[in-house]
């Protein structure tokens, strides 16, 4: 295939995946959103404002850091970390919320809603809402409210209302359901900032485009620092926004392998995991067709991961397409392996990664040693681990 990659089609399809599977009330709002997005995508004023915010408010470009000690210890490929953990609010999520909030403002919306799992997207949304003076409501599964209480407090400080969702499995998917319900009820004044490359078209394409700054920077930085393109990209996949953000600008660079890391929880074989690409099958949820974790009757099953941000039964439809076409590979990492990745990076490089990102670190620990010393891996360090201190301490029986 030499053709330039050009997905999705105009109705948001990545092959059989993606699309607009929504109730009628949401059809008009997503069409309006798409029109606004298409308009501002090429609007010089919009782009200038976005770029200025990314530079002065988020702190971009984020460094591409050569983790020399870690690379040496693992004894193989040179590992470069794309430092999204250094962004304002501590994760890649703000790249997207800044973009969507500017759109909301241009569309004249006065109220912002969001769903969140780990709370990183909720914090990033509450942050931009505070800055723009917009009302903000964040839906969060009750289970996640309990395990990410630090982020709940941050959101409240920022002036957001956090609603604990008690339905279903009380995690990210249920928060998304509840946000969609809010949106159909308040479509006139409300902008829904989805935090990952999920949801109906145009969200998967729009969130990708806002996150693609990760890969654009990384590609140039790698050329500048190492004098060539990397051999492999590694990123964790929850909904898949940090991964697609890194991968997308490299899709036409055929020599660059792209590897997404899903959460295997207690292990794929136990059924207690969050790895739809590795162990699920295609279906329709939250507005798009993609790989899902479901039972034989098409009911969505409960997921498990130590990291709230990966605890989601679906995945962005573009990843489903990249998997089927073989352009990207998807692997999985258990909770215990992720913890090894967490500790290894912390002790070797003095960088404490988020538990989500730790899955990418753990896979890098398997991949780097089987590659040669002159090969390069770029790993997306999607967020910092401060939010996970409680979870970690609890696991080790320490009271903070």
């Amino acid at each position: 295939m030499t053709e330039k990659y050009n997905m999705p089609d105009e109705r948001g399809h990545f092959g059989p995946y993606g699309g607009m599977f929504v109730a009628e009330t949401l059809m008009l709002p997503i069409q309006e959103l798409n029109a606004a997005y298409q308009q501002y995508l090429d609007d010089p004023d919009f782009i200038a404002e976005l770029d200025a915010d990314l530079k002065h408010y988020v702190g971009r470009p984020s460094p591409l850091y050569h983790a020399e000690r870690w690379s040496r210890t693992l004894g193989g490929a040179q590992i470069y970390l794309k430092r999204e953990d250094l962004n304002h609010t501590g994760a890649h999520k703000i790249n997207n919320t800044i973009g969507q909030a500017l759109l909301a403002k241009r569309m004249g919306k006065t109220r912002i809603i969001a769903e969140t799992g780990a709370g990183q997207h909720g914090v990033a949304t509450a942050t931009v809402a505070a800055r723009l003076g917009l009302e903000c409501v964040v839906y969060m599964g009750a289970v996640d409210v309990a395990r990410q209480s630090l982020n709940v407090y941050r959101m409240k400080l920022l002036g957001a209302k956090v609603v604990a969702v008690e339905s279903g499995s009380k995690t990210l998917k249920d928060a998304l359901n509840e946000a969609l319900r809010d949106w159909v009820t308040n479509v006139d004044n409300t902008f829904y900032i989805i935090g990952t490359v999920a949801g109906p078209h145009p969200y998967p394409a729009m969130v990708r485009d806002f996150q693609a700054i990760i890969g654009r920077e990384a590609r140039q930085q790698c050329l500048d620092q190492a004098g060539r393109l990397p051999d492999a990209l590694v990123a964790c996949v929850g909904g898949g926004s940090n991964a697609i953000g890194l991968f997308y600008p490299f899709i036409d660079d055929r020599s660059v392998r792209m590897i997404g890391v899903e959460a295997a929880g207690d292990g794929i074989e136990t059924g207690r995991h969050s790895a739809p690409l590795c162990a699920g099958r295609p279906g329709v949820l939250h507005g798009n067709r993609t790989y899902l974790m479901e039972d034989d009757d098409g009911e969505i099953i409960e997921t498990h991961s130590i990291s709230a941000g990966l605890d989601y039964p679906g995945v962005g439809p573009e990843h489903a397409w990249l998997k089927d076409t073989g352009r990207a590979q998807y692997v999985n990492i258990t909770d215990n392996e992720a913890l090894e990745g967490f500790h290894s990076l912390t002790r070797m490089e003095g960088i404490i990664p988020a538990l989500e990102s730790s899955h990418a670190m753990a896979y890098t620990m398997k991949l780097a040693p089987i590659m040669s010393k002159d090969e390069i891996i770029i790993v997306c360090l999607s967020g910092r681990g401060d939010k996970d201190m409680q979870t970690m301490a609890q696991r080790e029986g320490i009271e903070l």
Partner: protein
Amino acid sequence: MSRLAATFEALSKSGRKALVPFITAGDPRPDFTLPMMHAMVEAGVDVIELGIPFSDPMADGPVIQRASERALEHKMSLRRTLAIATEFRKTNQHTPVVLMGYVNPIEAMGYEDFANAAQRADIDGVLTVDLPPEEADECVALLKARDIDPIFLLAPNSTDERIKKMDAAGSGYLYYVSLKGVTGAGHLDVADVESKLNQIRANTRLPVAIGFGVKDAQTAKTVASLGDGVVIGSALISKIEANLDDLERAKKEIVELLVAMRQAMDN
């Protein structure tokens, strides 16, 4: 002529409107549904919408969400919903049954297997909340080839263009969701519904059933006068929820509400 078309035509000839209850299959227990369906027919309903339980009912309010959860606790599924419909048909050949739900259980079964199974169960219509006409070509073709009516939703913000699209893709009737929001939310605004119905009528000749927010006999009467039928969901399911320890009483209260609506609508 399909059973749905015949039902709406007969009603129209006698100057009456369709009373369309919605219950979730298997709520609160699988064995409650079949006798409830027969009792609703005796109470005077014209069409039954039977909900397929789904783990993630994004367009539903808390009442119908909990109905799904109760049904799923008893392992209710699309297959078992079809089995209930099959049983119902053994003793009732005249009341149309419309399956209503989300598309994923249907995708999991496979569109073609589902269409065949629905035909065997003598299902009259299928309404999938999250399958708009844009994504429905394959499913609609399979259903229509088996004389099953695909039923689409219209909303307060549906444009002329979209109403025409539903008119082309759908058959049997169109379902007008009378307020922006989830099922079971607030009360509908009659003046709004009336003006919207004028717009809908200008773009389709299909019968229009109106639902969302109809809770009592008086509203049912008013709404019925604006459309061709009225759908009652959360108000019925609330009766189940309020009487989980006495299901005979739940059934009785549902029948009483439907009888009151029937009388109000016919007078």
